[in-house]
């Protein structure tokens, strides 16, 4: 009699433990799967948002390029000069909070170098401020965004430009 009741108790405890384990496993798999899906969705969402934000910035640069084409090359004489460019870029900087500086460099072939330099009034230089040696093509900067704060270097650079 005592043994029978003991066996019954042990069997009940084992059955309850098995039921608990089964239920735990039954509910655990969907939960893990759902968590994985959520992680994937959140990651993709953030990637897309980052991509969109970057595309917006790229669009801003593209718009500036169109500005140069419209008012520099399509106009004769050109309606754009350094001062105008600087003023416009500065006034629209709110539109590009992630871009710290923009500049425009004109394509010059070697045959046109002398006429270009004569027209601009300055010599094409390297990035080390030395006269550029002869080469097939040149990309001298003719328009640039001024620094936000005045400084001696900026003043000197503007003078050189």
């Amino acid at each position, binding site marked *: 009699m005592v043994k029978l009741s003991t066996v019954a108790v042990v069997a009940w405890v084992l059955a309850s433990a098995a039921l608990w384990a089964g239920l735990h496993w039954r509910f655990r798999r969907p939960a893990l799967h759902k968590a994985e899906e959520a992680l994937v*969705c*959140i990651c*993709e*969402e953030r990637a*897309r*948002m980052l991509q*969109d934000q970057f595309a*917006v910035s790229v*669009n*801003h640069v*593209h*718009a500036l390029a*169109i*500005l140069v*084409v*419209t*008012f520099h090359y*399509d*106009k004769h004489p050109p*309606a*754009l000069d350094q001062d*105008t460019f600087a*003023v*416009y870029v500065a*006034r*629209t900087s*709110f*539109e590009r909070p992630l871009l710290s500086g923009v500049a425009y460099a004109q394509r010059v072939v070697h045959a046109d170098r002398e006429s270009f330099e004569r027209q601009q009034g300055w010599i094409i230089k390297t990035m080390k401020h030395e006269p550029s040696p002869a080469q097939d093509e040149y990309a001298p900067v003719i328009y640039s965004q001024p620094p936000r704060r005045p400084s001696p270097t900026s003043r000197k650079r503007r003078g050189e430009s």
Partner: protein
Amino acid sequence: MDEMSCGGGGGGARWKRARVAGMGEGKAGGGGGAAFLGLERVGMVVRMLPVPEKVSARARVVRGSLVAHFRGWRVVRETWWWVLLLWILAGSLGSFYLFLFMNAQSLDKRRDSLASMCDERARMLQDQFNVSMNHLQALAILVSTFHHSKTPSAIDQMTFARYAERTAFERPLTSGVAYAVRVTHGEREQFERQQGWAIKKMYSSSNKKQSSPGPGPGDAAVAEIREPAEEYAPVIFAQDAYKHVISFDMLSGNEDRDNILRARKSGKGVLTAPFKLLNNRLGVILTYTVYKYELPAYARPHERIQAAIGYLGGIFDIQALVEKLLKQLASQESIMVNVYDTTNESPISMYGDDTGSGMCHVSVLNFGDPSRKHEMHCRFEKKPPWPWLAITSSFGTLVIALLTGHIFQATVHRIAKVEDDFHKMSELKKRAEDADVAKSQFLATVSHEIRTPMNGVLGMLQMLMDTDLDTTQQDYVRTAQASGKALVSLINEVLDQAKIESGKLELETVPFDLRTVCDDILSLFCGKAQEKGLELAVYVSDQVPQILIGDPGRIRQIITNLVGNSIKFTERGHIYLTVHVVEEVMSCLEVETGIQNTNTLSGYPVANRRCSWESIRLFNRELHSSEKSFAPIASDSISLVISVEDTGVGIPFEAQSRVFTPFMQVGPSIARIHGGTGIGLSISKCLVGLMKGEIGFASKPHVGSTFTFTAVLMRAHCKGNDIKSSEFKGINALVVDHRPVRAKVTKYHLQRLGVKTELTAELNQFISKLNSGSLTAKLVLIDKETWLKESHCTPLLVNKLRNNDKPDSPKLFLLGSSASSPKGGSDTSREHNLNVIMKPLRASMLQVSLRRALGGVDKVHCRNGVVGNSTLGSLLHKKQIIVVDDNIVNLKVAAGALKKYGAEVTCADSGKKAITLLKPPHNFDACFMDIQMPEMDGFEATRRIRVMERDLNERIERGEAPPECASIQRWRTPILAMTADVIQATHEECLKSEMDGYVSKPFEGEQLYSEVARFFQNHDQVE
């Protein structure tokens, strides 16, 4: 014929009469013993009567307690249903509240989720919208930089249109942009001449619905010319898709006018109300102001109005914006989004047409224009799922509560059942206890009722044996008497067993003399011992105090049981009863080991006494340590070791473990031979336990058994009756016996009488002392066995004693027993006219024998060999004795016994009659008074008799005595109590009532003589 028979077979005739007399004496002694046990139970019965009252009181207490407890539990049983109901109700409410709580939690979580998603979408919508506004503002700056700041202007319609088209990718949600310049009335003619077209009026005055720049107003051909006004805002630049709006005055439209005025005043972008676009989608017009120069942030409105030079406007597609946004968030849970313009009381739907019900969250939108309000309404597309967690949790709680209630109900039900069973069991227990008490009372009553007639039967049989009967009749009478005694013994034992089983056996605590108790036991068994030719002896150590405090009746019962068993199972040899003190026994254990087994009372080997003591040696050690720890208290307690040694058949080894089991017989053959109830040892074991002792035994088959038990008693601090009389003081005695153990026993009894005793083992030593004249003993006791062994010396000794007629010649006694040859004994006694003292030795009969020998020479001769009877007859001859008893049978028994000794007996059947008969003056010499009598017991009657005697004695002293009493100086009639109760308490009661002694019923010759002699001898001396 008679003479011839006496002369021819004189020896045979004497032998036959002596044997018959001896057997009669034995029977009488046995009967007395049985009477002792039987009468003792009467006292037990009387004392036991109050016990039922105690049991009744205890039962009453238990019953009261049960009733109180049951009443308390009844209250619990009546209220537990309410408790269960409350519990179930509480459980249900608890689970319901749990469900509500968890459901509310899930709802809150769902609402929070909706709110967070809605807010997220609102924030993203705002950001996207602000980005588009920035683009429009940048375009305004472009116009300001290249149109108004340059002279000539760098922008014309074609340039503006081309640039707007090429940068349209940057503004996917803005479908069209246009620029209107500010013109005052004074500048109108010059402006119109320069532009080449006239400023036109928008179509708002005739049809409000056409106030927007739709296809209607766009038709320049049918438009009216703007009437003169203070200020104008004609469109000069426009995207190609909207070229038809060029030349229209924006100030001529109501909404456009409001927009322009608010824009130039605030300097910020402003929105119009939503309106339908060309593609049937809703949109708003966003307006920015272009100033002549850059104004600081803190510029005042009138300053801004003065600086205004133009207005840039763009059409903004809200639906596209919202759809783009929702596409980005498609991965999240789907919610339905509605966007409303809530600037006015009735909201204008800007996106979505959902009108469903359910949970809804509202997020406020901020598009940068403080004068307009927008909201986003969100709701879940799907219905909320079932709150399974809340459901399962609450259901589980409910199940647990119900299960707990079930457990509670089952527990209460079981408790109630157990309580009822307990109540029933209590009733049954009380009934069983009452039945047990009734059984005990019944046993006590029946035993008592049986004992009284049995005493009569035994007495009558004893009297019948004393009449002239033939051999057959004597055999029948003897058998009947033995059967009667066995029956009385059985009744006593059954009664004791019942008392032990019920736990109602109580020990008495009274002073008693253990030596007297042992002598009584010898008297009880001397008859049976003589029949079997056994040596029966008792020895009590000198270290045992004379007076002890305990229960003499129970000690007597235990020893009687052990000696009775020994006599039953012993056919030859001896039975030796010894009493020692525990310390004495322990110190002698080592010495005892060396003693040879053959050095015994009768010469037969016995079971080793040490083995019998070893079984309780542990107890002795414990007792010893106990005494050490409780030395101050335990100094009054004394432990005795009592042994009964026999040379019987012994106990088989396989039966030794069951010796103390009730109704256990060693074997059927022994039971058939000896009979017996078989519960004596069990009772003895229980009695020893009550006395804080232990009982054990050592036994060898065909050698013998030795039973030993211990008992704890108290020392008495008062002097008891000292039976040592001064008459034997200064007298020396010599004991001649070749067996040291037996000689020691004889010395023990002589020392009790105050006689100094010397021992010698050979008769020659006595003769040599006699010849040399160095013998100082006046008494010489020679064992008959030693006498017969050295029979060659006896004639010389007798001649020497006869020749010496000196006054100081010693008195010679033979210590005889039935173990000796009857023929030899008779010849010796007859031949030499020597005094013979029959064993077993007892102080009382030894005293009588010695006194008679020393008293006078003419009484030395004994007749028919029975010393006691002859002396008692001489004492009671022609004495007037009155016997008082309410029982007629007892009266006859007592009268018969006394008449047998020559007394003249008068009977009285009540105390009153006794008082009448004993009124002085009377002729009675003694009175035997029964104690238990109705109406007036023996004590009361005796007190009244003593009062009358005292009154008469006082009158005698005053000289007023009647003439009949002149010859007597003082009246004092000896009154002896006749009682079946021999306990010490009864004895003390007799003395207190001024009784002079007591005898037990039925009468025993020895005790009767010892009591009567004290009075009649003194009386004779006085006379």
